[in-house]
C-alpha cells in the first residue's frame, strides 16, 4: 500500500522533488501538498519578467492544475500549515484540514528581511518575494509616480528594472559602496551601476535608510511619501520595495521541536532531526550553509526524491553556483570565489569601448572565480572548468579569450584551429575529431563544406561547428577554398537559416530585436518571412526563457484557429488518437447549432472541423468545447497535429498491440510542442497499416515483437513513403525514441522544412545514430523535449477564454452611420 507523503510548501524545490519521485517510484506515495499561496507551482525566478511585463503568470507556471490531477496529488491552495504534530504524525492547516503522514517534507521557503526602521509598516512598503508582491507592485506602478528600492542586490535590481519598465521613476538605495557586492567585484559593480543608470534608474550607494516617512490618507491608514537617509536626504516615494535579503522560514519546524539553527538542520540525506521529516529548499540548512539560488535547491530536491524512493545513500553536497542578472540588456555573470588573496592570481580583460570586463581568479592552477560583464557568452565554459576543478595551466595563456581560443596561443582563428591537437573533437554531434577531417581533406581531395559533411559527417547535424570546419578547410587549402554561397533566410539578411540558428546559441541571442541588432538585419523590423522563423528558433532554443512574440506569428497561430478565404475561421478540437465520445459529439453538435456553423467536416486526421466561425465568436465557441473537456487540436500549428490510429488489439482480429492506446499516449505527451513545420503521426496495429502510418512524418507499425518506428514520409505536395528508423520492444522505448526524434528535428530543422526534407538534408543515418543507437544522446534529447513541454502544454483556447489577447476578438470601435455622416 502507498505511504502517505505530506509536503508543506509548493515552491520550485518540492515541485522538482515530486517530479523525480513520480519518475523513479511511481505510485509509492499518496501525496498531499499544502500551499500557503493560493495557486499552483510557478517559476519564482521568472517573477522579474512578469514584473517588467515581458511574461505573464500563465507563462511561468511549472505545474498546471492538470499535473496534480494526473499524479493523484491533493493540493490545498491557500492553506497555511499551522502545526506539525510529530507524535500523532499529522499536520494541521489554518482552515482546519488535518492530514496524517508517514513521511513529511518541510519546504516552507524563506521570508524577506524587513529592516525595522520607523515606517517600515506603512501602506505602500512592499517586499519582493511572491506573485502577490508583484501584483501589488504592478498595481502601484499603474498610477505612475516614484519608487524607491532598498537593496542593490540581484532581487532589488530586478525589481527596479521591472518598475522602471512599468513607467515609474525609480531610485535604488544600496548600503554598500558598489552594487551586488556579494557576486561582483568593484569594477563590475561600477559597470553595472552605469548600465542601470543608463536605463534611467537613479542609484545611491552607501545609502543607509533612517526612516520611511508617511502621510495621512483618506482611508485612515498612513501611506508612504518619502525615504529618509541617515545623512538627512529625503527621497520622495509613492512605493518602497525592500529587497535586502531573505532568511529561512523555519518557525513551523522549530515549534514542532525539530532542530533549527539558521535554517532547519539537515543531514546529508536532507533528513531533519526527525528522520521521517525532510527539509528542502531555502528553509533548509546543510553543513552550516543555507541556499537561495535554484541550482543547489534542485540538487537537494533530487536527494530528497532518491531518499524517498529508497536510496539511502543519496547525499547532498553544495557545489559552486553561478549568478546571472535577469535584466534585459544587462549581461552579467559571476561564479565562485573571487576575493583577492596572496595565493591567488588574476587574469583581466577589458574593452572599454564595448563596456566589456572579464576577470578570472586562479589558485593552484585551478579556476576559483569568474566575473564577467558585457559579454557573458563564455560563462558556461568557465563555470564548467570551475566546477570540475580542471587544471588550466595548459590553457592559461589564452584562457580569458574563452573556448574559441583555448587550443592555441594565436589570435587569428584559422591559426588557432590549425594549432588544435589532432584528437581535438570538432563535431560534438557526430564525434568527429580534427585528424579525421584534415585526413579526409588530404586523402580524398575534399574541397567544400558539403564534401566534408558527406565524407566525415562533421558539421552535418546541428551545424554549430561549421565555422571550425571551414577554418580547417581554409588552413589546408588556403585561397583554393571558397565557401559555398548560402541561401539567405530572406531579403532582410545575408545569413542562412543554419547560421542564424547557430548564432542564436553562440551569441545567446534571446529576443528578436537583439537578434536583428547583433546579426545586422538589413530591415528595421524584419518581414513576414523571417519574423515567424526567428520567433520559432528563439522559442525552441530558449524554452521557458523566451517570451513568444505573438505579432511575429501567422494569424492562425496568433488566434489558434484556421483563417478561411472569407476571413472567418475554422475550429478543430483535439480527439486524442481519433477517439471521441457521446459527450464530445453532443458538445460539438450544440456548438454547431448555437453559433450557426455553416459547415461541419470530418478531417483526414480523424477529427471534426467546424468551418465558417466568426472571429469574435471564437472565445465563446472554445468555452463551450472546453466545458466538454476538449482542447485545441492545433490544426493550424507548426507543431503536433494529429496522431491517427486504428482500433488495434482492442477490437481488430489482426491487431498485435494496443495501437489506439499508444497513439493517445503519444498525443497526450507531445501536444503543444512547436516544431519547424507541422508534424503528423499515426500508429497502426499491424502491418496491414489501416492508419496509413507509412506516409506520415512519424509512423509506428505495431508487430508481434514490438514496434517499428518509421519517419520522413509525406503525402502532400510530395508523396513519399516513410523510412524505417528502427525497431523497439516496448511502448516506453517507442515514445522515448519518437520524442528524441522530434526534439532533434526541433533543434536542427529550418523553419517550414518538413521532417522528410530535414532528414534528407542531414542524412537518415545521422538521425538514426543519434536517436536510436546512441542511448545517451537519445536520453539527452528526450530530457530537453520534456523540459520544453513544461512551457508548451497550456491549452491556448482556455487561456483565451480566460481573457488573454482579448483585443484580438473585439473590434476597436464601431461607428454608426449617423455619426459617420456628420
Amino acid at each position, binding site marked *: 500500500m502507498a505511504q502517505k507523503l505530506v509536503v508543506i510548501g509548493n515552491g520550485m524545490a518540492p515541485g522538482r522533488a515530486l517530479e523525480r519521485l513520480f519518475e523513479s517510484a511511481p505510485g509509492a506515495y499518496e501525496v498531499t501538498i499544502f500551499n500557503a499561496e493560493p495557486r499552483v507551482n510557478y517559476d519564482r525566478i521568472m517573477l522579474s519578467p512578469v514584473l517588467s511585463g515581458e511574461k505573464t503568470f500563465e507563462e511561468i507556471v511549472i505545474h498546471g492544475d492538470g499535473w496534480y490531477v494526473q499524479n493523484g496529488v491533493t493540493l490545498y491552495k491557500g492553506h497555511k500549515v499551522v502545526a506539525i504534530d510529530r507524535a500523532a504524525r499529522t499536520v494541521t492547516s489554518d482552515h482546519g484540514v488535518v492530514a496524517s503522514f508517514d513521511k513529511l517534507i518541510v519546504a516552507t521557503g524563506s521570508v524577506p528581511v524587513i529592516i525595522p526602521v520607523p515606517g517600515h509598516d506603512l501602506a505602500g512598503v512592499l517586499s519582493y518575494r511572491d506573485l502577490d508582491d508583484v501584483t501589488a507592485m504592478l498595481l502601484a506602478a499603474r498610477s505612475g509616480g516614484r519608487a524607491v528600492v532598498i537593496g542593490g542586490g540581484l532581487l532589488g535590481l530586478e525589481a527596479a528594472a521591472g518598475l522602471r519598465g512599468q513607467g515609474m521613476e525609480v531610485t535604488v538605495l544600496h548600503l554598500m559602496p558598489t552594487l551586488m557586492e556579494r557576486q561582483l567585484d568593484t569594477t563590475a559593480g561600477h559597470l553595472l551601476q552605469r548600465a542601470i543608470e543608463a536605463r534611467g534608474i537613479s542609484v545611491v550607494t552607501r545609502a543607509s535608510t533612517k526612516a520611511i516617512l508617511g502621510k495621512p490618507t483618506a482611508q485612515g491608514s498612513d501611506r508612504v511619501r518619502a525615504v529618509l537617509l541617515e545623512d538627512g536626504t529625503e527621497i520622495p516615494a509613492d512605493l518602497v520595495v525592500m529587497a535586502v535579503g531573505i532568511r529561512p522560514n523555519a518557525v513551523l519546524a522549530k515549534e514542532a521541536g525539530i532542530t533549527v539553527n539558521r535554517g532547519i538542520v539537515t543531514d546529508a540525506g536532507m533528513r531533519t532531526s526527525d528522520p521521517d521529516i525532510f527539509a528542502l529548499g531555502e528553509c533548509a540548512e546543510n553543513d552550516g550553509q543555507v541556499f537561495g539560488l535554484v541550482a543547489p535547491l534542485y540538487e537537494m530536491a533530487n536527494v530528497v526524491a532518491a531518499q524517498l524512493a529508497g536510496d539511502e545513500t543519496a547525499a547532498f553536497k553544495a557545489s559552486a553556483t553561478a549568478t546571472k542578472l535577469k535584466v534585459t540588456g544587462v549581461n552579467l555573470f559571476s561564479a565562485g570565489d573571487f576575493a583577492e588573496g596572496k595565493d591567488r592570481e588574476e587574469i583581466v580583460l577589458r574593452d572599454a569601448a564595448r563596456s566589456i570586463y572579464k576577470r578570472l581568479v586562479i589558485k593552484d592552477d585551478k579556476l576559483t572565480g569568474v566575473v564577467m560583464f558585457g559579454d557573458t557568452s563564455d560563462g558556461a565554459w568557465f563555470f564548467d572548468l570551475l566546477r570540475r576543478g580542471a587544471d588550466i595551466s595548459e590553457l592559461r595563456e589564452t584562457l580569458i579569450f574563452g573556448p574559441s581560443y583555448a587550443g592555441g596561443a594565436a589570435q587569428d582563428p584559422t591559426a588557432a584551429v590549425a594549432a588544435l591537437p589532432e584528437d581535438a573533437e570538432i563535431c560534438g554531434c557526430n564525434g568527429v575529431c580534427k585528424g579525421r577531417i584534415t585526413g579526409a581533406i588530404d586523402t580524398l581531395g575534399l574541397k567544400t563544406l558539403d564534401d566534408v559533411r558527406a565524407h566525415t559527417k562533421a558539421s552535418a547535424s546541428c551545424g554549430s561547428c561549421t565555422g571550425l570546419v571551414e577554418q580547417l578547410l581554409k588552413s589546408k587549402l588556403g585561397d583554393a577554398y571558397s565557401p559555398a554561397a548560402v541561401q539567405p533566410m530572406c531579403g532582410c539578411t545575408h545569413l542562412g537559416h543554419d547560421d542564424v540558428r547557430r548564432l542564436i546559441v553562440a551569441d545567446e541571442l534571446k529576443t528578436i530585436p537583439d537578434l536583428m541588432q547583433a546579426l545586422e538585419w538589413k530591415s528595421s523590423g524584419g518581414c513576414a518571412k523571417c519574423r515567424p522563423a526567428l520567433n520559432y528558433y528563439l522559442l525552441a532554443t530558449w524554452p521557458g526563457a523566451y517570451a513568444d512574440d505573438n505579432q511575429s506569428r501567422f494569424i492562425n497561430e496568433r488566434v489558434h484557429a484556421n*483563417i478561411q478565404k472569407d476571413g472567418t475561421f475554422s475550429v478543430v478540437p483535439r480527439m486524442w488518437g481519433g477517439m471521441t465520445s457521446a459527450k464530445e459529439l453532443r458538445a460539438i453538435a450544440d456548438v454547431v447549432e448555437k453559433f450557426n456553423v455553416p459547415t461541419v467536416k470530418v478531417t483526414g486526421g480523424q477529427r471534426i472541423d467546424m468551418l465558417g466561425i466568426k472571429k469574435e465568436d471564437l472565445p465563446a465557441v472554445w468555452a463551450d468545447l472546453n466545458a466538454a473537456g476538449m482542447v485545441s487540436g492545433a490544426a493550424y500549428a507548426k507543431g503536433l497535429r494529429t496522431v491517427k490510429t486504428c482500433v488495434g488489439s482492442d477490437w481488430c482480429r489482426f491487431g498485435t498491440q494496443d495501437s489506439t492506446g499508444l497513439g493517445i499516449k503519444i498525443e497526450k505527451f507531445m501536444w503543444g510542442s512547436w516544431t519547424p513545420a507541422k508534424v503528423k503521426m499515426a500508429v497502426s496495429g499491424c502491418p496491414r497499416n489501416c492508419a496509413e502510418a507509412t506516409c506520415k512524418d512519424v509512423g509506428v507499425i505495431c508487430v508481434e515483437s514490438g514496434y517499428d518506428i518509421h519517419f520522413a514520409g509525406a503525402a502532400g505536395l510530395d508523396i513519399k513513403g516513410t523510412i524505417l528508423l528502427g525497431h523497439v520492444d516496448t511502448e516506453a522505448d517507442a515514445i522515448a525514441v519518437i520524442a528524441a526524434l522530434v526534439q532533434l528535428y526541433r533543434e536542427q530543422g529550418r523553419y517550414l522544412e518538413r521532417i522528410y526534407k530535414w532528414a534528407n538534408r542531414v542524412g537518415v543515418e545521422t538521425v538514426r545514430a543519434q536517436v536510436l543507437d546512441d542511448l545517451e544522446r537519445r536520453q539527452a534529447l528526450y530530457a530537453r523535449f520534456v523540459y520544453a513541454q513544461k512551457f508548451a502544454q497550456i491549452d491556448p483556447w482556455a487561456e483565451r477564454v480566460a481573457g488573454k489577447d482579448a*483585443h484580438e476578438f473585439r*473590434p*476597436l*470601435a464601431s*461607428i454608426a452611420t449617423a455619426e*459617420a*455622416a456628420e
Partner: protein
Amino acid sequence: MTILETAWIDIGAVDDIPREGARVVRTAAGCVAVFRTRDDEVFALDDRCPHKGGPLSQGIVHGHSVTCPLHNWVISLKSGAAQGADEGQARTYRLRVGEGRILLDAASLTCNPKH
C-alpha cells in the same frame, strides 16, 4: 462645437492596438483596419486586400507594410499600394493621433466609392 471638431471620430487609444499589430473598426461602409507599427505610427486601410479581399488586419505587420494572411501580398500601410511585382491598391483613410488617441477623419468614411 464646430463642424471641424466633429469631423474627427475618436476610435480608441494607440495603446489599444498591439505594436506590429492591427484592430478593426466597424463602419456602415465596411471594416477599416487600423495598424500600429513598431515605431508607433498609426495607419488606416480598408480591411480588404486588393488581391482577393483578404482581411489585412489579420496579417503580419513589418516596417510600414502588412502581409496579407491569405496569399502573402505585401501592402504599403502609407499608400495602400501592393508592393513588389503585385499590382493593386487598398483604400487609405485619413487619421491623426493626439494625446495618445486615434482620430479618424469622418469625411473619408462617408465618401467610400464602393458604397
